[in-house]
């Protein structure tokens, strides 16, 4: 298959990334098709987050190439940013703004109407604390708010880095239903996990990353 073929949401070829003298990725190749949910497993420091960050245009690779929906992450970075929804370890919220203000900021940046903010707050069950500052939120609530931002954005390709951390059983269910909604409508998912259990039901396959290389595929 050729790079940029429409059924490939994510295509990564021979990716290498170095931090100082340390090689974090040593030639990673993988692909995710549309409508597919794939997990990236591996121990800490194996390079899972780095793959996601390169796909999200947050890092440039030192070698190899990566594309999202046929758009190259280096040459077409702004195009890629319009396609991907990325959730990092940290929720990336502003502590001194309220939940609603945080989402309204996202709506401003995404060019969406404020009305969408209220519905996504309700979807994640935070409507009753919309006017409270995020500083007082528990880690799980902050995760939910980050998820609400993803709901608001409704991206085509999901890049999630340990999305289940700090979530309770309801939260996991909510996360999975949001993900499933996007994947089923022709989106795609690449999720970095250290533990397979919470996502198992909805995954199509898994890849294992060890010391910057893909070691196993199932």
């Amino acid at each position, binding site marked *: 298959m050729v790079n940029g073929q429409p059924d490939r949401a994510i295509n990564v070829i021979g990716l*290498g990334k170095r931090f100082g003298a340390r090689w974090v990725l040593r030639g990673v190749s993988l692909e995710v098709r549309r409508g597919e949910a794939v997990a990236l497993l591996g121990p800490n420091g194996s390079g899972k987050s780095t793959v996601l960050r390169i796909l999200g245009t947050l890092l*440039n690779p030192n070698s*190899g190439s990566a594309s999202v929906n046929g758009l190259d992450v280096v040459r077409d970075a702004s195009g890629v940013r319009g396609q991907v929804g990325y959730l990092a370890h940290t929720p990336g919220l502003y502590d001194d703004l309220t939940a609603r203000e945080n989402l309204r900021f996202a709506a401003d940046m995404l060019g969406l109407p404020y009305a969408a903010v209220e519905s996504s707050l309700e979807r994640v069950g935070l409507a009753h604390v919309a006017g409270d500052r995020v500083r007082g939120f528990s880690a799980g609530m902050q995760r939910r708010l980050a998820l609400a931002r993803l709901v608001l954005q409704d991206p085509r390709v999901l890049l999630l880095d340990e999305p289940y951390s700090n979530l309770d059983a309801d939260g996991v269910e909510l996360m999975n239903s949001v993900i499933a909604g996007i994947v089923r409508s022709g989106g795609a998912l690449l999720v970095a996990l250290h533990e397979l259990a919470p996502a198992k039901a909805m995954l199509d396959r898994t890849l294992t990353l060890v010391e910057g290389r893909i070691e196993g595929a199932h």
Partner: protein
Amino acid sequence: MKPEGQLNSSSDRLRDPSAARPPRTSIWLAFVSIGAVIVAQTYAILTSPAEGDMGHLQKIMYVHVPAAWMTFLSFFVVFAFSVRYLWQRRENDDLLAASAAEVGATFNGLTLMLGMIWGRPAWGVWWVWDARLTSTLVLFLIFVGYLALRAFTDDTQQKARWSAAVGAIGALNVPIVYMSVKWWRTLHQPPSSPATLDPRYTMGLRLNAIALLLVMIYFIRKRYEIARLERATEHMAEAAAMGGK
């Protein structure tokens, strides 16, 4: 579906293929530039008469003034290669700009030191807020900032982009700094350095400028060569990391 196999690291599009074979600065440039300095200095010292106020201390000028010119010239080199790096993103331009900045900072430091040595007998103090001396000092601080930024950044691509931006914007400031310091001083008192030069000194000055230009070219080339070798080492480490176990 199975992931695709290991990819050969030679498919790297971010890497400059010429990085594998760094240039060699030939030794004759070293000899020529040192020879030129000896000839120019000898000529200047033998031909110039003792100056009225300064006596033979005036001979400091034959290094001080050309070194100041080379400082400005190297700022221009930093500017040109920084802009070209941002434009084309070729690693070599970044290394060349950085080499020019290091050499420029050296000439800049030399200019300042000789200016102070000049100032001690001329004005009786080591430092005066003379327009030229002060603006040279500010330029030195801008070089220091540029080099500090490079020292405090790890990622090579980030280092290259950031220092190119700082180099280009810093160089833009050179004429503004020069003008503002000059106004600041000269509106108070006439310039303290002689604006016109006795024709008996100009030839020696020109010869020394050419000699120091050769030295500067040699230094920048040599520093660039070392930087390229350092990068080549890193690329070999990359090939080893990507290819072998």
